[in-house]
């Protein structure tokens, strides 16, 4: 009886996904990563302030998308593996090592996992790099976007990206891209998290909703 009067909301049994917009862009001397902060389970927003930019090492971060649990777990495992690796080789790990570790897990368990991580960071051999690891592939790209919100900004990033931007220009580019995606994708929203990594380290910033740039949306 009580079940009919008060049916359990669907979202309680939906998988928790980070319907998301994530983006990582290289600039001359480092990378900038950006993400939105909405975690949805079906139609409900389960967390409106989640930081989807997860540190793998001092100067290597990854952006999470897809299933929240899968993505977080991969990030934690790789964080541990990189710690061990950097102690063994007695040096900061290379970004390609971090990306390869993520790719090895994504590929081996590709039937069971559903997560796409973008790995980006700075190392002294090749400077700022961005790697996409969707479904277990591994490519190095000047910039990468991911998540459900990324489909709405494909044209924007293709048109607006330029090589060798300055740090400021790159940060603006990332925030603009996130804002546009969050404006159109129902599964993305909240605040924008931005992480800038260069030879001096990683700098995290949170851009609140009212500070985001305004585009034509009367």
């Amino acid at each position, binding site marked *: 009886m009580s079940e009919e009067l008060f049916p359990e909301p669907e979202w309680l049994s939906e998988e928790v996904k980070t319907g998301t917009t994530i983006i990582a862009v290289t600039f001359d001397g480092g990378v900038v990563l950006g993400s939105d902060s909405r975690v949805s389970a079906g139609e409900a927003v389960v967390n409106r302030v989640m930081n989807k930019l997860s540190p793998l090492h001092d100067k290597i971060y990854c952006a999470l998308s897809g299933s929240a649990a899968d993505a977080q777990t991969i990030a934690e495992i790789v964080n541990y593996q990189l710690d061990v*690796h950097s102690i*063994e*080789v007695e040096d900061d790990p*290379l970004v*390609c*090592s971090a*990306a*390869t*570790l993520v790719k*090895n897990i994504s590929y081996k368990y590709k039937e069971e996992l559903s997560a796409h991580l973008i790995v980006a960071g700075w190392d002294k051999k090749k400077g700022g790099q961005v790697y996409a690891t969707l479904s277990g592939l591994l490519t190095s790209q000047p910039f990468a976007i991911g998540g459900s919100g990324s489909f709405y900004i494909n044209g924007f990033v293709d048109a607006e990206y330029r090589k060798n931007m300055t740090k400021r220009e790159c940060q603006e580019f990332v925030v603009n891209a996130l804002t546009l995606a969050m404006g159109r994708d129902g599964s993305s929203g909240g605040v924008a998290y931005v992480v800038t990594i260069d030879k001096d380290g990683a700098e995290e910033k949170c851009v609140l909703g009212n500070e985001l740039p305004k585009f034509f949306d009367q």
Partner: protein
Amino acid sequence: MSSIGTGYDLSASTFSPDGRVFQVEYAMKAVENSSTAIGIRCKDGVVFGVEKLILSKLYEQGSNKRIFNIDRHVGMAVAGLLADARSLSEVSREEASNFRSNYGHDIPLKNEEIKIRHKHLADRVAMYVHAYTLYSAVRPFGCSFILGSYDEDDGPQLYMVDPSGISYGYWGCAIGKAKQAAKTEIEKLQMKEMTCRELVKEVAKIIYIVHDEVKDKAFELELSWVGEVTKGRHELVPKDIKEEAEKYAKESLEEEDDSDEDNM
């Protein structure tokens, strides 16, 4: 040979009263019975030279190589029991290959910062060699080997691992029966200022100098290098350069013989 270690030398798991593990020392003697191998690091690469004794005229030329490729950018020259050395080269290859598969880039032999020195592949293989000095069920490896590599960013590196499982970094090192004589010759070189091309000739000359004509008769020289000249790949020295190096070596020997006669 007097049996110094009577009773305490039967297994690697036993110390002697004066704190030595005789089995490991005996393993090092096995290395000293083998013919000489040297490795020298110069400004832009590493050169290996091995005196390969020919025990029979029926041997095919170039067989029983004592220089191995461990990875594209790493070479290994060995002295001691050749079968042990081959097994260790397989181990090294696996380590290098697994590293590349797990971490997506070439295994560092060593990464030199201003004061910190450390070595990854050399460490991993040395750990493996050391493991065989702990138990009575196995015997230590009867070979020493020299690992050398070249990388654009880190430059040339040279490491030697001996049967006890220690690894040392070197600018120039020698293993095998004439290692003392070879070391003396190596010390005379200004290797930090030489290039690989110059060094190849000197390495050939040293092998020719330390070779004992009376006891060992015929030998074949194995030469390999890795450096800027090979774009970071470890390769056997090309035939024409090797012949030039051997010619230089033979001529230098004759000059020295002549000058000895004059002095008398």
